[in-house]
């Protein structure tokens, strides 16, 4: 199968790989290709660092294997090829009253990518992670032969694949349990939160099924940790589903001054004050609420041609308050943060040994790629490990192997599953090499 030899990058556009990509459009072509030229799968390239990059072996681009294969309206189980985008599933299933139970902040991610990163959404505290809603998988091994993997047939391999960053094989298709979608719109309430303590208290008190907080990562002193908390629940049944708005595209790489400290501080203050002091409530289309950034396609170009890093950690509830205070102080003092910063509550739900979530709070902050930002993120990673938290592998490009060993206590069992499924390491990605996810012998 022909390879596209053009270099490719993750969403952050800092790291790249150029060992080529095949892009089969038929299942038989995929299996044939893998039998001859095994390599890891990639999806929509929406992970930020090197999770989907393969600098040694040609990767398999799964985005053209994107067909929905079967749906059972009795059980809500949908079987689909791994390349289908979650926004596509939502668009076709919501009018039937169903939706993926877990949807991350962009609908562009593929089903396979969502499983491999065990993604979470704004409802994680109630419904858990994406992998917890996977019924079974069709997984292609190093020789390209398919096997049905589920919690009943091969529980260890199944668990290791959920959140396994693609290292156990190529997910060809998966059956997932959808959740009811009672309405095409949600009732969203937004309110200003004055500072970090108030934020954590507001999250703890909230009973809304969907919660997400924007945080002003440039604010300091009294205002440290201020932001806007969004809570949402479904509108009463009956409102029709409307697709997300037509995309506007960012036509070019933005110049660097756009993200200078002064500009971001000014922007953030306006963004904070846009919400009335008394808060506001409004009805919004479901897709627009779930995927706020998808109306702006190619928004990663706003960070300029050097790209950007996103730091995302989760911190356990008991250390979160102090650690978040220390992190936000350091970030604000650096003047390096971009406007895009998110604070969210997490429940305990996680699907596999390498899954990110844990009960507590997750913070995500974008930083334009500069040497000072890389140094800052390295310190934030260290703080995360010290606090008993984790960095999100789908976002990371700067952690080191010793961090992952401290953050992911089930790493050894994961390594055992991966080595059993892929003894020769044909599915090893750049991420796996950087973080020694297969262990040192890989």
């Amino acid at each position, binding site marked *: 199968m022909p390879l596209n030899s053009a270099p490719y990058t993750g969403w952050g556009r800092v790291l790249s790989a150029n060992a080529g990509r095949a892009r089969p459009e038929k*299942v038989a072509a995929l299996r044939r290709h893998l039998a001859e030229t095994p390599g890891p799968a990639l999806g929509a390239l929406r992970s930020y660092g090197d999770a989907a990059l393969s600098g040694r072996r040609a990767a398999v681009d799964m985005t053209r294997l994107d067909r929905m294969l079967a749906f059972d309206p009795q059980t809500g189980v949908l079987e689909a090829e791994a390349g289908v985008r979650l926004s596509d599933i939502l668009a076709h299933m919501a009018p039937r009253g169903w939706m993926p139970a877990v949807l991350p902040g962009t609908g562009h991610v593929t089903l396979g990518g969502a499983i491999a990163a065990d993604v979470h959404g704004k409802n994680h505290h109630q419904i858990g992670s994406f992998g917890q809603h996977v019924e079974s998988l069709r997984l292609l091994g190093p020789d390209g032969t398919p096997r049905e993997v589920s919690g009943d047939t091969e529980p260890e391999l199944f668990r290791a694949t959920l959140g396994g960053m693609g290292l156990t094989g190529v997910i060809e298709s998966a059956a997932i349990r959808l959740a009811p979608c009672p309405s095409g719109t949600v009732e969203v309430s937004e309110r200003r939160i004055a500072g970090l303590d108030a934020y954590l208290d507001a999250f703890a008190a909230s009973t809304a099924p969907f919660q997400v907080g924007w945080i002003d990562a440039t604010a300091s002193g009294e205002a440290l940790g201020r932001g806007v908390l969004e809570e949402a629940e479904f509108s009463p049944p009956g409102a029709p589903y409307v697709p997300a708005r037509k995309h506007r595209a960012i036509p070019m790489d933005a110049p660097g001054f756009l993200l200078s400290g002064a500009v971001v501080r000014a922007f953030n203050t306006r963004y904070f004050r846009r919400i009335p002091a008394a808060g506001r409530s409004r009805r919004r289309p479901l897709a627009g609420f779930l995927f706020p950034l998808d109306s702006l396609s190619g928004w990663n170009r706003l960070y300029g041609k050097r790209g950007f890093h996103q730091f995302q950690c989760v911190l356990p509830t008991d250390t979160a308050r102090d650690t978040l205070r220390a992190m936000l102080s350091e970030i604000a003092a650096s003047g390096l943060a971009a406007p895009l910063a998110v604070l969210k509550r997490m429940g305990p739900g996680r699907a596999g040994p390498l899954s990110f979530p844990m009960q507590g709070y997750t913070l995500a902050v974008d930083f334009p790629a500069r040497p000072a930002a890389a140094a800052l993120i390295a310190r934030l990673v260290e703080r995360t490990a010290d606090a008993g938290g984790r960095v999100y592998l789908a976002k990371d490009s700067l952690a080191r192997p010793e961090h992952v060993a401290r953050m992911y206590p089930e790493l050894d069992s994961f390594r055992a599953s991966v080595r059993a499924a892929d003894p020769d390491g044909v599915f090893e990605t750049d991420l796996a090499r950087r973080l020694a996810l297969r262990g040192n012998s890989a």
Partner: protein
Amino acid sequence: MTETWIIVGASSAMARALARATAPRSATLLLCGRDTEDLQRDAADLRLRGAQAVEVLAYDTRDPGTEAALVARAAALEGPFNVAVFAGAMPPQTEVEADPSLLAGVVQDNFTATGTLLLRLAPLMEARGAGTVVGVASVAGDRGRLGNHVYGAAKAGFATLLSGLRNRLGRSGVHVVTVKPGFVDTAMTWGLDGMFLVAAPEAVAKDILAAVRRRRNVVYTPWFWAGIMAIIRSVPEPIFKKLQI
């Protein structure tokens, strides 16, 4: 009444995009191609996307036997139908230069097999007095270029046939659209050197359906290829023969 489409070469990315664009309108679809097992997956997908009925039929440009079943199935359709022909193949020009016997196959895949099929379907469409034929030719057929003239010649033949069919079938109320895509992001162009302004298959499908609705005769997709090809066609032969394009 909802529309019926016979899609020939239904595994191609452009065909898949066209089928997906018609499915939410409750279209009835006949997917014709070689890999029927894979097409069954498309059929399942299209049903979930809203298609009223989807059937899969074997069709192979190299196997004339498959044509009869397709024509028989079309004859059994009640009411008017549309046909969209995407079938085609583009081996590297250098391969054909090394083994000129490959030329016949290229012509068969891109012109004579699908041309024969259209000639057999034509009376059925004339009898129904309605419907549209979409024939996918190529900008490569507009001029014999250094790097791609075997494929281009076959597509030029197909385009000329479509032009004549348009004249013939128009007399019975059947419209023929000739589609000339530029570079489209498909398996055919994946990884080829020298690709630029590559269009998404979904954009091409949208252009095709707009052309069908407006009863356009010849459309370039994306639209700017009309300008590019007008320039390429206007270059005098003494100059053109020295160009590397």
